[in-house]
């Protein structure tokens, strides 16, 4: 942001930046609402659980006003970002993959949901080999499930695929021990 540019052309209102400033102001409002909802014992009037929330709220209001002011003066987006068009189709597929994962992870289990997300995200990023991607996704999800989750002791919801494989693995180990 060079000063001479600002002097030369009259500042234009930057709508996306303005929305961000207003959004942050709304967040400050939510903080205020939730802070007022904290019951305070008079014992803690000066150092209670609301002092920091109030400071945070005040800071957020001040910052959102400064952001709105910057937006009114033409915003702060670098030229490069402004000129690149957003690829909505690509983003749409990624978002669809995320939502599918969220909806399917409980009914189908982690592996199946991950494979579906994997294929959708790959497609969004321009890959046109859904079958190959599904295979890669399956291998990766199983590796994540068995290598990562079981090694870390993290319990991910198991679906049909995981159950079958767990039974198989336990069976093999059972035979090995016997």
């Amino acid at each position, binding site marked *: 942001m060079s000063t001479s540019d600002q002097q030369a052309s009259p500042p234009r209102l930057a709508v996306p930046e303005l929305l961000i400033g207003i959004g942050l102001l709304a967040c400050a409002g939510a903080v205020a609402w939730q802070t007022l909802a904290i019951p305070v014992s008079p014992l803690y009037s000066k150092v209670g659980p609301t002092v920091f*929330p109030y400071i945070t709220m005040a800071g957020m209001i001040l910052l959102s006003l400064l952001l709105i002011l910057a937006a009114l003066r033409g915003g702060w987006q670098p030229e490069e970002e402004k000129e690149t068009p957003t690829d909505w189709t690509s983003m749409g597929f990624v978002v669809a993959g995320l939502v599918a994962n*969220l909806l399917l992870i409980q009914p189908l289990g982690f592996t199946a949901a991950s494979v579906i*997300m994997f294929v959708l995200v790959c497609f969004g*990023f321009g890959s046109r080999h859904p079958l190959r991607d599904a295979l890669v996704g399956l291998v990766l999800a199983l590796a994540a499930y068995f290598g990562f989750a079981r090694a870390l002791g993290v319990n991910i919801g198991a679906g049909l695929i995981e159950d079958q494989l767990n039974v198989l693995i336990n069976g093999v180990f059972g035979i090995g021990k016997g």
Partner: protein
Amino acid sequence: MDTLGYLAHGFAVAFTPTNLLWCLVGTTLGTAIGVLPGLGPALTIALLLPITYQVAPEASFILFAGIYYGAMYGGSTTSILLNTPGESATIVTALEGNRMARSGRGGAALATSAIGSFVAGTLGTLGVAFLAPIVVKFALAFGPAEYFSLMVLAFITVSAVLGSSSVRGLTSLFVGFVIGMIGVDLQTGQPRFTFGMGELLDGVDVIIVAVGLFAVGETLYMASRRYAGKDEIVPLKGSLYMTAAEWARSWKPWLRGAAIGFPIGAMPAGGAEIPTFLSYAIEKKLSKHREEFGTVGAIEGVAGPEAANNASAAGVLVPMLTLGLPTSATAAIMLSAFQSYGINPGPLLLTTQANLVWGLIASLFIANVILVILNLPLIGLWVRLLKIPAPQLYAGILVFATVGTYGISQSPTDLVILYLLGAAGFLMRRFDFPTAPVIIGMILGPLAETQFRRAMTIANGDWTVFYRHPLSLTLLTLAFIGLVGPHIWAWIEHRRTRGPEHVPGDA
């Protein structure tokens, strides 16, 4: 016991076969995620945080430190061969390093950056070992008021002084404060910012915030920018061994870079951008081959900043281990790992957890040796990682993001929070808000609040306690200068350069 005695003890801890194995795993994983665009040490350590429930603290911190150092080495490979700096600290490396690769001297660029990282990393780690006990002596005199003021100073430096805009940096920081306050207030038991939802009583896990901002947000951003520019990998040409002339041109920048990087990293300000840019400017000024800068690529411009980067990464560990003060997103996540073990980093850490701290420092020396081996003879392996196509890479990142998040409590609510944070991360990336202050704010904010309330309670609710103590007043003054100073300076500069134009007849 003096520092050397402690260090010897630390090496005894680090040289056990299991801990050596953790170090090897950490450095290998760290190099890999450093090489891969879109993955960073903060995200990786966050995803691996559940390991703290499984293994001893020494093991997990040796693993995390290996990842932390490894990512610095790996990141420079990507900068040199792909010209896509994985993180802000390697922007400068890409400047000259990528030009060197294009003019067929990629091997020398990789070698000087790996050996420079080794030299500076080792010097920096030595700095940690000798500086930490000194800082502890000072820190023991700190009361709650001083701690609070020190944290305010750190907040200002990480969000307002570094980065492109103080307003946007502070905005990120305050968003982090709000996230950090969600849940039950530990001192009074009151729920805060839960919007009446039971799931939020335990607070938002740092794993979800880091994964949301760094993995989901980054993936959405890359998807939205898919056609913005295709990066090409410069094929690795030239010998990996530096010529005598290249050694002669490299060793001074390494030492200067380390001397610049470590002190700046060790200050409660942190950040690797300033030392790398500073080192670049100095090398450019001192170089006898100034014509190579910006044209064919100058080796000094790679050697100096890379050394500064690694030394400052080591320096960041000093305030983290001695004061419990994280000044980068990765350090903040490591601090939450300490909390997960019920350990409070602070002045007492070096004596109460001597095994852990000195074992960790000793393992950093070992990590540096492993890393220089991993990154020079085995460089071909990492170059191959760069060829993973973007679709599968980002889809895979999301699979691991799901494992890390859903695995915490198998709750779809966590996934919803993850996606909301991902959307926020996308907007922040798109509109140039830094993300690290969010993580630092959410981890350090609650600690600052605790110190604030402690100081206020001791002073019977008297606000003046923060400026009646001379040390606390000094720290707050420094913070104020950090916040206001750059603006005043810019205004004066503006006036000085503008002055004659405005009033031509005055001069």
